[in-house]
């Protein structure tokens, strides 16, 4: 592993805005007040405002410089498993920034925002149609937030029908960490269900836990191994027979558009990730958007508000769209109506695909993943090896290269100009490398990536230090994470003598 021994102070590649600051600089100026001054009592004022001072050109150059340190979908191939790093169409950024969308206040009278409400209503209808569910909320801010909404509804439903002793959520061992964290946040006990040798939920283990203390089960399908659970209908049946509800984690919906409807398989609740499946950009960590669909049974529990028609169309006057509160609502889960800017992008994307285009997305996403799998499986061990969906999980280790880890392969891929796959997840695969190509990559890109993976496998056996010392061609090398956690420098300030500069 990399040694961290420093003889001198670390070299600063790009100063922080605090280090770039100089007293008296201004990046943007505002007009003088056109109204009389109103005296502010000194006791209400802050003593100092220690923010940096820069000109506009300083600020632009600083952030442009920082941007060059980032790898992004726009700069290259990003096969990060479970994240669906597909191309984000440029038109979506333009439509979301139209003044008619960007400059409306969420508390304006509904009569002044009919365009926005119609867009939300239409998006609700489309997302219901794609998943087969009866009702939906657009409010959740992200996938994890959607899970929280879904689990709260499941728990409220169970309580409402008097099943108060139900306190248990079943979660497969391959699940994302958000599933157990969400269940715990709503006060539920998490029971982990193992996977069988084909990567499906172990049905015997499931049956053993399917009792009258069950709130339900959270299942990602396709699961995080990239595999469609072959017993999904039976799983839903077992959970339903025990009085539980089925939560579908829609993280992997990019494989399912027009391929199957999750409600038809037996799910009761499901969240989408608009930032994965419907190409709203990931933004370096957010914003996401996690609409939640439900069956008719759970519709009354949806968070408030949802968009609906509040006055029907009549005499040639179009319907009036508005916001309503479902009658058994779990309540509000955030301020206002959700990440509207993301709705505009997803709406644009769905409108430009139509039913056939959406099916193409999933077919080509699955084609791309299986193509990489077919060409890598002889070199990288794939523990659950069958036709995969939009991603698959290989092991980043070889018995005859014992000191090579998935992390080394990931870092070496950066030297070949690629973003690495997700590593060390799912937890049930040793040294996991989770590869999700998405549909927007062409065969040439995939071939170049595959060649890099094959070349790295060779290096791992012949020149392992190339992997251990990787990356070399990136702007930064491996980070000292222990030092970060030990020093815990989470903030910087202007220097003490700043005003005397």
């Amino acid at each position: 592993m990399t040694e961290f021994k420093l003889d001198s102070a670390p070299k600063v590649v790009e100063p922080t805005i605090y280090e770039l600051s100089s007293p008296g600089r201004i990046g943007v100026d505002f007009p003088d007040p056109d109204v009389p001054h109103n005296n502010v009592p000194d006791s209400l004022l802050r003593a100092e405002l220690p923010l940096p001072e820069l000109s506009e050109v300083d600020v632009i150059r600083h952030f442009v410089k920082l941007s060059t340190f980032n790898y992004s979908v726009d700069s290259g191939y990003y096969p990060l498993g479970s994240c669906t790093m597909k191309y984000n169409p440029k038109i979506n950024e333009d439509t979301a920034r139209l003044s008619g969308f960007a400059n409306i206040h969420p508390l304006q009278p509904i009569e002044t925002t009919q365009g926005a409400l119609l867009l939300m209503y239409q998006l609700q209808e489309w997302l219901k149609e794609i998943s087969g569910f009866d009702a939906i909320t657009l409010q959740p801010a992200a996938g994890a937030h959607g899970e929280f909404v879904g689990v709260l509804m499941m728990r409220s439903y169970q309580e409402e029908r008097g099943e108060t002793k139900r306190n248990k959520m079943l979660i497969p061992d391959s699940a994302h960490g958000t599933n157990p964290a969400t269940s715990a946040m709503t006060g539920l006990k998490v029971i982990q269900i193992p996977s069988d040798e084909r990567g499906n939920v172990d049905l015997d283990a499931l049956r053993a836990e399917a009792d009258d203390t069950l709130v339900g089960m959270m299942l990602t399908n396709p699961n995080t191994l990239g595999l469609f659970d072959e017993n999904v209908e039976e799983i839903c049946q077992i959970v339903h027979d025990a009085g539980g509800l089925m939560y579908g984690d829609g993280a992997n919906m990019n494989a399912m558009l027009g391929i199957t409807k999750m409600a038809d398989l037996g799910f009761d609740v499901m969240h989408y990730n608009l930032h994965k499946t419907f190409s709203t950009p990931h933004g370096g960590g957010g914003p996401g958007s996690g609409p939640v669909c439900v069956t008719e049974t759970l519709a009354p529990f949806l968070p408030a508000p949802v968009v609906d028609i509040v006055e029907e169309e009549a005499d040639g006057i179009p319907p009036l769209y508005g916001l309503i509160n479902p009658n058994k609502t779990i309540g509000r889960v955030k301020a206002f109506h959700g990440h509207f800017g993301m709705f505009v992008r997803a709406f644009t994307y769905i409108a430009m695909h139509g039913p056939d285009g959406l099916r193409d997305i999933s077919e080509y996403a699955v084609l791309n993943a299986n193509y990489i799998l077919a060409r890598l499986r002889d070199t990288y061990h794939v523990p659950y090896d069958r036709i995969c969906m939009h991603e698959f999980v290989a092991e980043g280790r070889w018995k005859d290269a014992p000191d090579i880890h998935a992390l080394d392969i990931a870092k070496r891929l950066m030297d070949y100009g690629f973003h690495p796959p997700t590593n060390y997840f799912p937890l049930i695969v040793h040294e996991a490398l989770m590869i999700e190509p998405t549909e927007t990559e062409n065969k040439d890109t995939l071939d170049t990536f595959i060649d890099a993976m094959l070349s790295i496998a060779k290096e791992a056996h012949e020149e392992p230090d190339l992997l251990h010392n990787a990356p070399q061609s990136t702007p930064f090398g491996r980070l000292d994470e222990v030092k970060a956690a030990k020093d815990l420098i989470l903030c910087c300030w202007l220097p003490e003598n700043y005003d005397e500069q």
Partner: protein
Amino acid sequence: MTYIPHSPKERDEMLKTIGVEKMSDLFEAIPEAHRYPDLDLPPALTEMEAAAELSELAQANETTKDLVSFLGAGVYNHYIPAAINHILLRGEFYTAYTPYQPEISQGTLQAIFEYQSLIANLTGMDVANASHYDGATAVAEAVNMAIAQFRGKRKKIVMSTGVHPHYRATTDTYTQFADVEFVSEEASRNTSEALIPLIDKNTALVLVQYPDFFGRICDYTKLGEATHEAGALFCVVANPTALGMLKTPGEMGADMVVGEGQPLGISMSYGGPYLGFFTTRNKFVRKMAGRLVGESVDARGQRAFVLTLTPREQHIKRERATSNICSNQGLLALAAGVYMSLLGQTGMKQVAELCYHKAHYAAEKIAEIPGFSLTFDSKFFHEFVVTCPKPVAEINAHLFEHGILGGYDLGQDYPEMADNLLVAVTEMNSKEEIDALVAVLSEVNHD
């Protein structure tokens, strides 16, 4: 039109390599009865058609550019410097994922580190996280943090009615299965004086807003002291614009300062995406939810940044994590960082003062109109409550006829405050606009 780049020939070569004949062979694991359902969706539009359709939908809305707006209530119409959007539109920022691979994510990491620093400095606190979904969820996470701090042994949360109604509603939803009780004062009362008697040894958290939902400002120092005497935590929900001039919650002894970052260069966009900021003291940093970026060095001896204290988070701790939060509002945190960098100490103070002076001018003029009065005699920042001679809905309808987006009808959330209008004034409102508002309000009694 799609964004799929394969030629038919390439597709066929790939199918052959995989060892199947056709696309549908890849989906045999899906139950046959439910495979390839019909999707009842409109046919695909070209980019040109989609642009036209979206443009039409956008034009069906009346914007704060078309109208004169005095609507605030948690979302504010501020000037957004042009440079921000140009940075946000860099694909290197907006098409990147969470910076889990620090070697190729230093842009995002350093930008978040700087955002954390700016927010901590603005609020007068030690440390900020990389952000929450919005102000409401940041408040809910503060309540969860306080409950966890006392391991459920203290069961009382003292939450002011002056906290945004959506934030209180969200917190209720978040905590509905937790064993805690919420107590509040009457909305018309002086918050500090009214809350102090409610604090006891069973109190985990005292939570107030600054300026409060009614725009009022007061020094919470004594409230903070009373909170700490009872051993409870003190959280202030703050408006970041106001902190350009006002005494910081940090100076008042807050243990947590949270709030809505929308005023920091983020468009109103009908309610989101926004930015929930969250700050605390060093001693509580391990209890805080959300991502954190810390400073370190790389293998080449360069200063560099990395996500740190990740063992608190869901992808490591799973059901024992501090929260299920996974994403942050990365791109909005970047926007806020660029905004604060551009404005700096001079600009932030300038905007705060413009808001303050204009709001006070408007309040003074409105109070002079017969039949109208200011509901509170407290100090306020850029928002204030007007008692009206008629229902607020009527007044807003009348204003709207004159192209004015009136204020917020407080009767919606506070039944005892029917006929009370919440008016927000920012640097965007000129004297002419304020005078027009006053003139139209003056007509109300003559109708």
